[in-house]
């Protein structure tokens, strides 16, 4: 098993490398380069811009630029301490912690000149909160949709052509056909205009936190004005957590509908297929109860194909979150990526493409491992 995982991880590396090459090329063929918006800024001298260009290798062929970029991520950047010979301090003032743009920490994903932040911070949020939110929403959505969809799928398959089956069937079709943005827009109107959750119950709508919690600590530190580490459960700011949970369900529900819809249909179809298999007939013939036949024999085998599709759900969830984040103004990686796209902020787009590629690969890896764990048939030599 460990051997399998190792091989699978090793196999990911070339794949990841190719993804990074493709992403880089995609950005490279676009007009402009990393520092083009920067060149426009009259505050910076030609000499300094030349140095920046040298840093990114913009005067060299594309593979050198790529190599420099990759080096920054996997290894290190060339630290040039004296930045602008004509103006050595400007950066220190301009940047976060005075380290811009030749940041010493890794991975160095580039610098967003539009947002005046390192690309990693522009994408993942300054404290990485956007990243955490994205992961939480993604994982919760996946769990939620499986939790709802599998039982419905089983029920539909075992009660084929019953009223409930038709009902679920129709609704899963509808869920598949309703674009997420329409759902999100309707949700906003329902909460604000129809239910008036704010006026009646003081509940917030949209975003991931209410205003008063936006800058509050997740956990309290020892000093009054200090935040504790995020894992310090004993001093957690529980009201903030509760507030977050209240804001979490709408995106999960909206993104989840489409997932649930297709999952239900897959589960139903698979289970029906499996129920027709000879070994199930055999099990029935042996006199096992229908319950045992379905849950012990059929369901386990019907779920396997779904697990292999797990990796495929992740990009779908990503799409859903992006659209919902656009309407509900969620502070997630997808929204930051969208903003980078609309501002043509190349380093952030590049970082985003790479990030989503990595997530996708990890999802595939995870689903493969899971598959091996639940399905003894699949060999992992």
């Amino acid at each position, binding site marked *: 098993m460990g051997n399998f995982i190792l091989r699978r991880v090793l196999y990911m590396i070339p794949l990841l490398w190719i993804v990074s090459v493709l992403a880089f090329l995609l950005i490279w063929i676009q007009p402009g380069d990393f520092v083009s*918006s920067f060149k426009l800024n009259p*505050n910076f001298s030609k000499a300094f811009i030349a140095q920046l260009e040298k840093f990114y290798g913009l005067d060299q062929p594309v593979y050198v630029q790529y190599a420099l970029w990759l080096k920054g991520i996997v290894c290190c950047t060339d630290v040039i301490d004296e930045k602008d010979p004509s103006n050595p301090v400007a950066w220190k003032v301009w*940047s976060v912690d005075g380290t811009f743009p030749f940041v010493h920490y890794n991975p160095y994903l580039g610098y967003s000149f539009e*947002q005046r932040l390192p690309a990693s911070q522009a994408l993942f949020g300054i404290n990485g909160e956007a990243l955490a939110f994205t992961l939480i929403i993604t994982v919760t959505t996946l769990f939620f949709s499986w939790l709802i969809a599998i039982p419905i799928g089983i029920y539909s398959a075992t009660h084929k052509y019953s009223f409930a089956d038709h009902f679920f069937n129709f609704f899963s079709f509808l869920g598949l056909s309703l674009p997420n943005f329409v759902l999100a827009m309707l949700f906003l109107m329902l909460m604000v205009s129809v239910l008036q959750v*704010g006026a009646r119950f003081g509940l917030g709508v949209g975003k991931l936190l209410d*205003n008063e919690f936006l800058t509050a600590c997740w956990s309290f530190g020892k000093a009054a004005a200090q935040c504790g580490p995020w894992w310090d459960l004993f001093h957690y700011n529980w*009201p903030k957590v509760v507030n977050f949970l209240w804001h979490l369900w709408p995106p999960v529900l909206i993104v989840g509908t489409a997932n649930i819809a297709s999952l239900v249909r897959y589960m139903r179809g698979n289970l029906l297929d499996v129920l027709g298999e000879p070994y199930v007939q055999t099990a029935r013939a042996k006199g096992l109860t229908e319950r045992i036949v379905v849950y012990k024999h059929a369901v386990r085998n019907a779920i396997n194909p779904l697990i292999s599709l797990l990796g495929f759900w992740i990009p779908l969830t990503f799409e859903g979150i992006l659209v919902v984040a656009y309407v509900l103004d969620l*502070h997630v990686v997808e929204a930051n990526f969208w903003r980078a796209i609309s*501002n043509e902020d190349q380093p952030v787009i590049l970082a985003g493409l790479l990030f989503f590629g990595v997530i996708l690969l990890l999802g595939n890896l995870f689903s493969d491992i899971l598959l091996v764990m639940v399905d003894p048939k699949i060999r992992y030599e």
Partner: protein
Amino acid sequence: MRKEFASLSLLALLVVVIWFATVNVVTASPCPRIDQQKDLNPLVIEIMPDSETAKPVCGGIMTSHLIARPISVNPITGIDASTFELTARIYDSLLDGKIDNPLPRMAEAWQQSDNKQTVTLTLRKGIKFANGDPVTVEDVRFTFENLIYPKEIASSDRDVIACGDGTLPVIRVEASDKISFTCTIRTRTFLAFIGLIEILNKKKVLELVPNVEKSPKDFNTALSLATSPEKMRGIGAGPFVLTKLDPGSVAEFARNPFYWESDKDHNQLPYLNGIRILIAPTDGQVLALASFRNGQTDWFVPRPDDISLLQADKASRGFPVNDDINSGFPLPGTTFWVLSWTAKNPALQAAFRAKEFRQAMSYLTDRAAINKNIFNGLGTEIYWSLNPLSEYYVERPGQPQAVIDRVNKTKFSFDLVKAREILDSLGLKDTDGDGIREIPQNFQGRGNPAGKLEFALSTNAGNTLRIEIAQQIANDARRAGVLINVDTKDAAVLFDKLQTGDYEAILTSLSGGYVPESSANVFTCDGNLHFFNVICPFEKRNNPQVDYEKFEKKVDDFYGNGAVAQEIKEAKKIWDDAQILIGEFQPMIYIVQMNALFAYRTDVLRNHGRAPLANQDVVYCLNGKCRGG
């Protein structure tokens, strides 16, 4: 056993958590007072008429919304409205910038010398920055001489405080609390504009930018959004202190305990404990309205369409919103679209430099339809470079008929036929039959290659009104064979493009517009925001060859003469001519100025008239009632 205990305690914890989360603990803090604050120039804060509570209510946090991301928190180099939303709360100025009748702020008194060339300002006694540092004349001197005067610093302030001969006022420290400014050729707005400058704490600036005296350029990038609010504490003497800033989501302010201002009952201002300004990172205005209606924000700038929605909310479910969302008078500033004379595409550049072309574009701007459809009639069409409320506005009542006749020649109201005629006569014809005109080679002898008459009109992402205006202009232009593609950019990107001239067309607005002198930074050749022609070489300007160079020269002269005219009547005449000239050349094509619309929750902002937003650079006044916005 242990397991059960654990789960039980977990359950108990959950109950406690939910209880904490649902119970709102509001502690109203009294208005603390500073004893030594005597009746020194008590600035009366007008309390909004509320019959029940004549007394102010203290405490609370006001939440409002910004639809565009601010670029920095630098009051000197900042140019965008969102930045000023933040800086207006952090910094304070010497005087309240009213041209003819300045009011004391950080300076409690001022004298003018007999020849009126020197003004001496006296600092308020005991005034302090937000960290307790006393404000000294050295801070004032430093702010002017080290942060505004150096050419390397991109500041528009320098353009407006310049003396009539273009030099900068000479500063002298007269006493420990007195500082004087001297101009040999004094402009009419001399005192008011000096009073408008926000004063920074020298100690803090040096902490943040240690080298600023030797290398002033560093200040351009100082006070960025990434600067930690901790480090910035005490940089200004405004009513609030920035406590947290996440450019993607929120800026939070706490009340400045050392703030000097108090109301007539000697309550130290501001009343509010804090301000929270939400910054919408994506498509701002959509959620901003939802948040306001849902009670998550207290102050909101609606679109005209939203007014009926808010009024319906008030009627149907008693939503506590003010009645006068529509103030009935235009917002300060001017809204326009501008064609870059330095556009990268040479064919477009050649066309954009022709004044007749810009006039045609002005003819294609259907201001009446924009006002009616987009602003629901809550706006004023503008054709000249000032706000219609300005007393210098060229189409003001009481203008003699001779002037009106000249004025009307530069009033390019929507006229499709005329626009087509002009474009035809310029030789911009549709030669390939695709419905879009072409720019011929060497257009007006500018040596350009041929090209299509197609350009991008950029405007703020998230500002739906501006996008709609841009679309309306694009629609009408297409009927005249000009293809305009509307695209949207973040405010920061837009301003970068504007400052560097690397754009084709931009639709945006400028603040101010009441006093013509305040737009010197835009119209004069070397102005900091001379965005329609960022390359305005002096040798060319002083020795003009072509009409647009002559135009630049003439405008510079107007700004020189207009500023030093001491008599208001004389000044008005000069500014009339300037507006007519600018109207003829259409460097900016003015559109419609929307009315000031603001909605606030009457239950939360019951008596906070101007106080929560103290030190606003803009005050709306109508019939003696004033309001900050």
